[in-house]
């Protein structure tokens, strides 16, 4: 069964901490992995990863993909209260017809 598993399910940190969110997957014909941040309503796009070992960076956020071990991590350094959100990982996979599957998300709470 194709699946995407995120861990931890939730965590609470203090401002200034660094966090690492994990996403592992088991799918057939992997194509790409996407990270989204969901605050109150609509998820917003963070990164798309297709190649192993190439870090993508945006400010204090970075992400990397390991296609051999089938996982990705999302790092947030010097966390701020505005980073509090659900972080969603999604994998695009499939043969003739592409499919998309999301993980359950990681709920991050950053306390002042």
């Amino acid at each position, binding site marked *: 069964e194709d699946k995407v598993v995120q861990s931890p399910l939730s965590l609470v940190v203090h401002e200034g901490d660094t966090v690492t969110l994990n996403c592992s997957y088991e799918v057939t014909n992997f194509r790409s992995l996407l990270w989204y941040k969901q605050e109150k309503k*609509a998820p*917003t796009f963070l990164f*798309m990863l297709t190649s192993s070992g190439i870090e993508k960076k945006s400010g204090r956020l970075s992400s990397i993909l390991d296609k051999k071990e089938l996982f990705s991590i999302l790092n947030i350094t010097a966390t701020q209260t505005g980073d509090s959100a659900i972080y969603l990982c999604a994998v695009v996979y499939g043969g003739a*017809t*592409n499919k*998309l599957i*999301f993980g359950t998300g990681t709920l991050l709470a950053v306390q002042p």
Partner: protein
Amino acid sequence: SQTIHQWPATLVQPVGSPLSLECTVEGTSNPNLYWYRQAAGRGLQLLFYSIGIDQISSEVPQNLSASRPQDRQFILSSKKLLLSDSGFYLCAWSVGQPAYNEQFFGPGTRLTVL
């Protein structure tokens, strides 16, 4: 610039009643359109995606249906709602190859079936 609208924002419906949620996109042509559902404490589940008018793929068998009567309009419907249909419904769009491009999400509709 592109914008995506969904309505209503919140909906409370009795079991067995019909449903119609609407999504429209502005500022782009030939978008790929998607309907997702997010149950409480769960990730997003892709329900339908469409690459063009009247071209809709269903990802999960259920009592929901989708239609795309115009290029930038995507409608999610049900003839008879179930309790399990409660959730947060998100519409999204992308352009180009569906698999490789980022998707942009609408504000969502929170549906409660009682």
